[in-house]
Protein backbone atom coordinates (compact mmCIF):
# COMPACT_ATOMS: atom_id res chain seq x y z
CA UNK A 1 0.00 0.00 0.00
CA UNK A 2 1.24 3.49 -0.73
CA UNK A 3 0.95 6.37 1.71
CA UNK A 4 -2.37 7.64 0.34
CA UNK A 5 -3.91 4.20 0.60
CA UNK A 6 -2.75 3.84 4.19
CA UNK A 7 -4.13 7.28 5.04
CA UNK A 8 -7.43 6.43 3.42
CA UNK A 9 -7.60 3.13 5.28
CA UNK A 10 -6.65 4.56 8.67
CA UNK A 11 -7.94 8.15 8.61
CA UNK A 12 -11.14 7.40 10.54
CA UNK A 13 -9.31 5.25 13.09
CA UNK A 14 -6.73 7.95 13.79
CA UNK A 15 -9.45 10.64 13.87
CA UNK A 16 -11.35 8.53 16.45
CA UNK A 17 -8.22 8.12 18.60
CA UNK A 18 -7.52 11.86 18.55
CA UNK A 19 -11.14 12.50 19.56
CA UNK A 20 -10.99 9.97 22.39
CA UNK A 21 -7.74 11.42 23.73
CA UNK A 22 -9.31 14.90 23.56
CA UNK A 23 -12.33 13.65 25.54
CA UNK A 24 -10.05 12.02 28.15
CA UNK A 25 -8.04 15.20 28.65
CA UNK A 26 -11.24 17.29 28.89
CA UNK A 27 -12.55 14.83 31.47
CA UNK A 28 -9.45 15.29 33.64
CA UNK A 29 -9.68 19.07 33.29
CA UNK A 30 -13.34 19.13 34.30
CA UNK A 31 -12.69 17.05 37.42
CA UNK A 32 -11.50 18.40 40.72
CA UNK A 33 -7.75 18.82 41.11
CA UNK A 34 -4.89 20.28 39.14
CA UNK A 35 -2.67 17.89 37.17
CA UNK A 36 -0.27 20.53 35.84
CA UNK A 37 2.59 19.13 37.89
CA UNK A 38 1.60 15.46 37.65
CA UNK A 39 4.46 13.53 35.99
CA UNK A 40 2.09 11.19 34.15
CA UNK A 41 -0.01 14.08 32.81
CA UNK A 42 3.23 15.71 31.62
CA UNK A 43 4.29 12.45 29.97
CA UNK A 44 1.05 12.41 27.98
CA UNK A 45 1.75 15.96 26.73
CA UNK A 46 5.28 14.98 25.74
CA UNK A 47 3.89 11.93 23.94
CA UNK A 48 1.50 14.17 22.01
CA UNK A 49 4.44 16.42 21.08
CA UNK A 50 6.21 13.41 19.56
CA UNK A 51 3.24 12.91 17.21
CA UNK A 52 4.24 16.19 15.56
CA UNK A 53 7.81 14.98 14.98
CA UNK A 54 9.08 14.67 11.43
CA UNK A 55 11.01 11.49 12.16
CA UNK A 56 9.66 8.12 11.04
CA UNK A 57 10.34 6.39 14.35
CA UNK A 58 7.66 8.17 16.38
CA UNK A 59 6.37 4.87 17.82
CA UNK A 60 9.81 3.92 19.12
CA UNK A 61 10.31 7.44 20.52
CA UNK A 62 6.95 7.24 22.31
CA UNK A 63 7.97 3.86 23.73
CA UNK A 64 11.25 5.25 25.04
CA UNK A 65 9.51 8.33 26.47
CA UNK A 66 7.28 6.05 28.57
CA UNK A 67 10.24 3.87 29.68
CA UNK A 68 12.35 3.90 32.82
CA UNK A 69 16.01 4.62 32.29
CA UNK A 70 18.55 1.86 31.79
CA UNK A 71 21.90 2.14 33.56
CA UNK A 72 24.55 -0.24 32.21
CA UNK A 73 26.23 -0.38 35.58
CA UNK A 74 23.21 -2.02 37.15
CA UNK A 75 25.02 -5.29 37.94
CA UNK A 76 27.61 -3.44 40.02
CA UNK A 77 24.83 -1.46 41.74
CA UNK A 78 23.09 -4.70 42.64
CA UNK A 79 26.44 -6.17 43.71
CA UNK A 80 25.78 -9.15 41.44
CA UNK A 81 28.69 -11.23 40.25
CA UNK A 82 28.72 -11.71 36.49
CA UNK A 83 28.15 -15.33 35.43
CA UNK A 84 29.90 -17.19 32.67
Amino acid at each position, binding site marked *: *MNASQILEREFLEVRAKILEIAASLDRMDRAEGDLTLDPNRQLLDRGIDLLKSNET*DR*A*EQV*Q*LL*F*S*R*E*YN*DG*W*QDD*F*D*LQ*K*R*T
Partner: protein
Amino acid sequence: MYYIDPHIHMVSRTTDDYQTLARMGCVAMSEPAFWAGFDRGSADGFRDYFRQLTEVEPARAAQYGIQHFTWLCINAKEAENVELSREVMKLIPEFLDCPNVLGIGEIGLNKNTRNESIVFQEHVELAIEHEQQILIHTPHLADKYQGTRMILDMLAGHTGLDRSRVLVDHVEEHTVREVIDAGYWAGMTLYPVTKCTPARAADIIEQMGPDRLCVNSAGDWGPSKPTAVPDLIMEMRRRGHTEGMIQQVVFDNPYQFFSQSRHFSFQVPNPETRVFDTP
Protein backbone atom coordinates in the same frame (compact mmCIF):
# COMPACT_ATOMS: atom_id res chain seq x y z
CA MET B 1 -4.08 -21.33 7.46
CA TYR B 2 -2.48 -23.58 10.11
CA TYR B 3 -0.84 -21.67 12.93
CA ILE B 4 0.98 -22.26 16.21
CA ASP B 5 0.45 -20.02 19.25
CA PRO B 6 3.83 -20.19 21.00
CA HIS B 7 2.70 -18.43 24.17
CA ILE B 8 -0.76 -18.88 25.64
CA HIS B 9 -1.89 -19.68 29.20
CA MET B 10 -4.57 -22.27 28.67
CA VAL B 11 -4.92 -23.19 32.37
CA SER B 12 -6.77 -19.86 32.58
CA ARG B 13 -8.94 -20.35 29.49
CA THR B 14 -12.22 -22.12 28.81
CA THR B 15 -12.84 -25.15 26.62
CA ASP B 16 -14.85 -22.78 24.41
CA ASP B 17 -11.52 -21.08 23.69
CA TYR B 18 -9.94 -24.41 22.72
CA GLN B 19 -12.88 -25.01 20.38
CA THR B 20 -12.59 -21.59 18.77
CA LEU B 21 -8.80 -21.77 18.39
CA ALA B 22 -9.06 -25.18 16.71
CA ARG B 23 -11.63 -23.81 14.26
CA MET B 24 -9.39 -20.82 13.49
CA GLY B 25 -6.50 -23.06 12.44
CA CYS B 26 -4.50 -23.46 15.64
CA VAL B 27 -2.76 -26.86 15.47
CA ALA B 28 -0.22 -26.49 18.28
CA MET B 29 0.50 -24.17 21.17
CA SER B 30 3.04 -23.81 23.93
CA GLU B 31 2.21 -22.69 27.44
CA PRO B 32 5.01 -21.28 29.57
CA ALA B 33 4.69 -21.52 33.35
CA PHE B 34 3.56 -18.20 34.74
CA TRP B 35 2.03 -16.30 37.63
CA ALA B 36 -1.43 -17.48 38.67
CA GLY B 37 -2.79 -14.06 39.60
CA PHE B 38 -1.71 -14.59 43.22
CA ASP B 39 1.54 -15.63 44.90
CA ARG B 40 1.52 -19.35 45.61
CA GLY B 41 2.50 -20.40 49.11
CA SER B 42 4.61 -23.50 48.64
CA ALA B 43 6.76 -25.53 46.26
CA ASP B 44 4.09 -28.23 46.49
CA GLY B 45 1.66 -25.80 44.87
CA PHE B 46 4.07 -25.53 41.94
CA ARG B 47 4.31 -29.32 41.69
CA ASP B 48 0.53 -29.40 41.16
CA TYR B 49 0.80 -26.60 38.59
CA PHE B 50 3.52 -28.49 36.68
CA ARG B 51 1.27 -31.57 36.66
CA GLN B 52 -1.53 -29.44 35.25
CA LEU B 53 0.83 -28.19 32.51
CA THR B 54 2.22 -31.63 31.66
CA GLU B 55 -0.86 -33.85 32.16
CA VAL B 56 -4.13 -31.94 32.18
CA GLU B 57 -3.74 -29.32 29.44
CA PRO B 58 -2.26 -31.68 26.81
CA ALA B 59 -5.31 -33.92 27.31
CA ARG B 60 -7.72 -30.97 27.19
CA ALA B 61 -6.10 -29.65 24.01
CA ALA B 62 -6.05 -33.07 22.34
CA GLN B 63 -9.86 -33.21 22.48
CA TYR B 64 -9.84 -30.38 19.93
CA GLY B 65 -6.99 -31.70 17.78
CA ILE B 66 -4.46 -29.23 19.18
CA GLN B 67 -1.02 -30.37 20.37
CA HIS B 68 -0.04 -28.73 23.65
CA PHE B 69 3.58 -28.08 24.74
CA THR B 70 4.88 -26.37 27.85
CA TRP B 71 7.82 -24.64 29.58
CA LEU B 72 8.61 -24.87 33.29
CA CYS B 73 10.00 -22.39 35.84
CA ILE B 74 9.01 -20.09 38.66
CA ASN B 75 7.96 -16.80 37.11
CA ALA B 76 9.60 -13.42 37.70
CA LYS B 77 6.86 -12.14 39.96
CA GLU B 78 7.14 -14.97 42.48
CA ALA B 79 10.94 -15.03 42.00
CA GLU B 80 11.11 -12.14 44.45
CA ASN B 81 11.01 -14.95 47.04
CA VAL B 82 14.46 -16.46 46.39
CA GLU B 83 14.13 -19.26 48.92
CA LEU B 84 10.83 -20.52 47.44
CA SER B 85 12.29 -20.12 43.95
CA ARG B 86 15.20 -22.40 44.76
CA GLU B 87 12.82 -25.06 46.09
CA VAL B 88 10.76 -24.84 42.91
CA MET B 89 13.86 -25.00 40.69
CA LYS B 90 14.83 -28.22 42.48
CA LEU B 91 11.50 -29.73 41.38
CA ILE B 92 11.94 -28.95 37.72
CA PRO B 93 14.37 -31.69 36.62
CA GLU B 94 11.93 -34.47 37.50
CA PHE B 95 9.44 -32.94 35.01
CA LEU B 96 11.91 -32.39 32.16
CA ASP B 97 11.24 -35.87 30.79
CA CYS B 98 7.50 -35.26 30.40
CA PRO B 99 6.71 -35.63 26.71
CA ASN B 100 5.34 -32.09 26.19
CA VAL B 101 8.09 -30.08 27.93
CA LEU B 102 10.09 -27.88 25.53
CA GLY B 103 12.36 -26.16 28.06
CA ILE B 104 12.65 -23.55 30.81
CA GLY B 105 10.26 -20.57 30.75
CA GLU B 106 8.90 -18.04 30.95
CA ILE B 107 11.75 -16.79 33.13
CA GLY B 108 12.62 -13.11 33.14
CA LEU B 109 12.14 -9.90 35.06
CA ASN B 110 9.06 -8.12 36.33
CA LYS B 111 10.11 -5.09 38.37
CA ASN B 112 13.81 -5.47 37.50
CA THR B 113 14.91 -6.21 41.08
CA ARG B 114 18.04 -7.82 42.44
CA ASN B 115 16.18 -10.95 43.59
CA GLU B 116 14.52 -11.38 40.21
CA SER B 117 17.97 -11.13 38.59
CA ILE B 118 19.44 -13.78 40.89
CA VAL B 119 16.64 -16.25 40.18
CA PHE B 120 16.84 -15.50 36.44
CA GLN B 121 20.54 -16.36 36.42
CA GLU B 122 19.98 -19.61 38.28
CA HIS B 123 17.27 -20.63 35.82
CA VAL B 124 19.63 -19.96 32.90
CA GLU B 125 22.24 -22.17 34.56
CA LEU B 126 19.64 -24.89 35.11
CA ALA B 127 18.71 -24.74 31.42
CA ILE B 128 22.34 -24.94 30.28
CA GLU B 129 23.04 -27.83 32.63
CA HIS B 130 20.06 -29.79 31.26
CA GLU B 131 20.49 -28.64 27.64
CA GLN B 132 17.07 -27.01 27.65
CA GLN B 133 15.74 -24.25 25.43
CA ILE B 134 14.71 -21.01 27.14
CA LEU B 135 11.65 -18.80 26.78
CA ILE B 136 12.00 -15.36 28.36
CA HIS B 137 9.39 -12.90 29.66
CA THR B 138 10.35 -9.23 29.42
CA PRO B 139 8.58 -6.74 31.72
CA HIS B 140 5.72 -4.55 30.57
CA LEU B 141 5.23 -0.84 30.06
CA ALA B 142 7.74 1.48 31.75
CA ASP B 143 9.86 -1.46 32.92
CA LYS B 144 10.23 -3.14 29.54
CA TYR B 145 13.19 -1.25 28.11
CA GLN B 146 15.28 -1.39 31.26
CA GLY B 147 14.37 -5.03 31.95
CA THR B 148 15.08 -6.19 28.42
CA ARG B 149 18.52 -4.57 28.50
CA MET B 150 19.23 -6.20 31.87
CA ILE B 151 18.18 -9.60 30.52
CA LEU B 152 20.43 -9.20 27.48
CA ASP B 153 23.30 -8.22 29.80
CA MET B 154 22.77 -11.35 31.88
CA LEU B 155 22.44 -13.67 28.88
CA ALA B 156 25.62 -12.22 27.36
CA GLY B 157 27.50 -13.37 30.42
CA HIS B 158 26.71 -17.04 29.78
CA THR B 159 29.28 -18.19 27.25
CA GLY B 160 27.76 -21.69 27.23
CA LEU B 161 24.48 -20.44 25.85
CA ASP B 162 23.29 -21.24 22.32
CA ARG B 163 21.39 -18.06 21.41
CA SER B 164 19.44 -19.77 18.65
CA ARG B 165 17.72 -21.82 21.35
CA VAL B 166 16.49 -18.76 23.30
CA LEU B 167 13.34 -16.73 22.59
CA VAL B 168 12.91 -13.29 24.19
CA ASP B 169 9.20 -12.53 24.36
CA HIS B 170 6.99 -9.44 24.52
CA VAL B 171 9.34 -7.35 22.36
CA GLU B 172 8.01 -4.05 21.02
CA GLU B 173 9.31 -1.21 18.85
CA HIS B 174 12.07 -0.19 21.26
CA THR B 175 13.38 -3.64 22.18
CA VAL B 176 13.03 -5.87 19.12
CA ARG B 177 16.16 -4.78 17.31
CA GLU B 178 18.63 -5.49 20.10
CA VAL B 179 17.12 -8.94 20.68
CA ILE B 180 17.23 -9.97 17.02
CA ASP B 181 20.66 -8.39 16.36
CA ALA B 182 22.11 -10.35 19.30
CA GLY B 183 21.05 -13.62 17.65
CA TYR B 184 18.03 -14.55 19.77
CA TRP B 185 14.51 -15.31 18.61
CA ALA B 186 11.91 -12.68 19.48
CA GLY B 187 8.22 -12.96 20.29
CA MET B 188 5.60 -10.25 19.94
CA THR B 189 2.58 -10.44 22.20
CA LEU B 190 -0.74 -9.20 20.81
CA TYR B 191 -2.68 -7.74 23.69
CA PRO B 192 -5.19 -4.96 24.16
CA VAL B 193 -3.91 -1.67 25.69
CA THR B 194 -0.75 -2.77 27.48
CA LYS B 195 1.18 -4.63 24.77
CA CYS B 196 1.31 -4.78 20.97
CA THR B 197 -1.59 -4.48 18.51
CA PRO B 198 -1.83 -6.59 15.32
CA ALA B 199 -1.15 -3.42 13.28
CA ARG B 200 2.00 -2.55 15.22
CA ALA B 201 3.21 -6.16 15.09
CA ALA B 202 2.75 -6.11 11.32
CA ASP B 203 4.78 -2.87 11.20
CA ILE B 204 7.61 -4.54 13.09
CA ILE B 205 7.56 -7.57 10.80
CA GLU B 206 7.68 -5.26 7.79
CA GLN B 207 10.63 -3.35 9.18
CA MET B 208 12.65 -6.22 10.65
CA GLY B 209 11.75 -8.92 8.14
CA PRO B 210 10.12 -12.15 9.33
CA ASP B 211 13.26 -14.06 10.36
CA ARG B 212 13.28 -15.29 13.97
CA LEU B 213 10.08 -13.33 14.77
CA CYS B 214 7.08 -15.08 16.34
CA VAL B 215 3.70 -13.75 17.43
CA ASN B 216 1.51 -14.96 20.26
CA SER B 217 -1.65 -14.04 22.14
CA ALA B 218 -0.44 -14.72 25.70
CA GLY B 219 -4.15 -15.29 26.46
CA ASP B 220 -4.54 -15.60 30.21
CA TRP B 221 -6.95 -14.82 33.09
CA GLY B 222 -6.71 -11.05 32.57
CA PRO B 223 -7.94 -8.88 29.69
CA SER B 224 -6.51 -10.71 26.68
CA LYS B 225 -7.67 -12.19 23.40
CA PRO B 226 -6.71 -15.83 22.74
CA THR B 227 -7.65 -15.38 19.06
CA ALA B 228 -5.18 -12.52 18.50
CA VAL B 229 -2.92 -14.49 16.13
CA PRO B 230 -5.73 -14.87 13.56
CA ASP B 231 -6.22 -11.08 13.94
CA LEU B 232 -2.61 -10.61 12.84
CA ILE B 233 -3.10 -13.00 9.92
CA MET B 234 -6.06 -10.88 8.77
CA GLU B 235 -4.15 -7.61 9.22
CA MET B 236 -1.21 -8.92 7.16
CA ARG B 237 -3.56 -10.16 4.45
CA ARG B 238 -5.25 -6.74 4.30
CA ARG B 239 -1.84 -5.16 3.79
CA GLY B 240 -1.23 -7.41 0.81
CA HIS B 241 1.35 -9.80 2.26
CA THR B 242 1.59 -13.25 0.70
CA GLU B 243 0.22 -16.31 2.42
CA GLY B 244 3.77 -17.72 2.48
CA MET B 245 5.13 -14.68 4.28
CA ILE B 246 2.34 -14.83 6.86
CA GLN B 247 2.78 -18.56 7.34
CA GLN B 248 6.48 -18.07 8.04
CA VAL B 249 5.62 -15.89 11.02
CA VAL B 250 2.66 -17.81 12.46
CA PHE B 251 3.71 -21.38 11.69
CA ASP B 252 7.18 -21.98 10.23
CA ASN B 253 9.04 -19.82 12.76
CA PRO B 254 7.62 -21.34 15.95
CA TYR B 255 7.93 -24.77 14.32
CA GLN B 256 11.60 -24.17 13.56
CA PHE B 257 12.31 -22.76 17.02
CA PHE B 258 10.51 -25.60 18.82
CA SER B 259 12.20 -28.23 16.62
CA GLN B 260 15.42 -27.67 18.54
CA SER B 261 13.75 -29.24 21.58
CA ARG B 262 14.02 -33.03 21.85
CA HIS B 263 10.36 -33.30 22.92
CA PHE B 264 8.87 -31.45 19.97
CA SER B 265 7.34 -34.40 18.17
CA PHE B 266 5.00 -32.65 15.81
CA GLN B 267 4.03 -33.66 12.31
CA VAL B 268 3.43 -30.73 9.94
CA PRO B 269 -0.13 -31.19 8.63
CA ASN B 270 -0.28 -32.45 5.06
CA PRO B 271 -3.07 -33.70 2.81
CA GLU B 272 -2.75 -37.24 4.26
CA THR B 273 -3.01 -36.04 7.87
CA ARG B 274 -5.87 -37.28 10.05
CA VAL B 275 -6.31 -34.96 13.04
CA PHE B 276 -8.39 -37.59 14.85
CA ASP B 277 -7.94 -41.32 14.46
CA THR B 278 -11.01 -43.06 13.14
CA PRO B 279 -12.71 -44.86 16.02
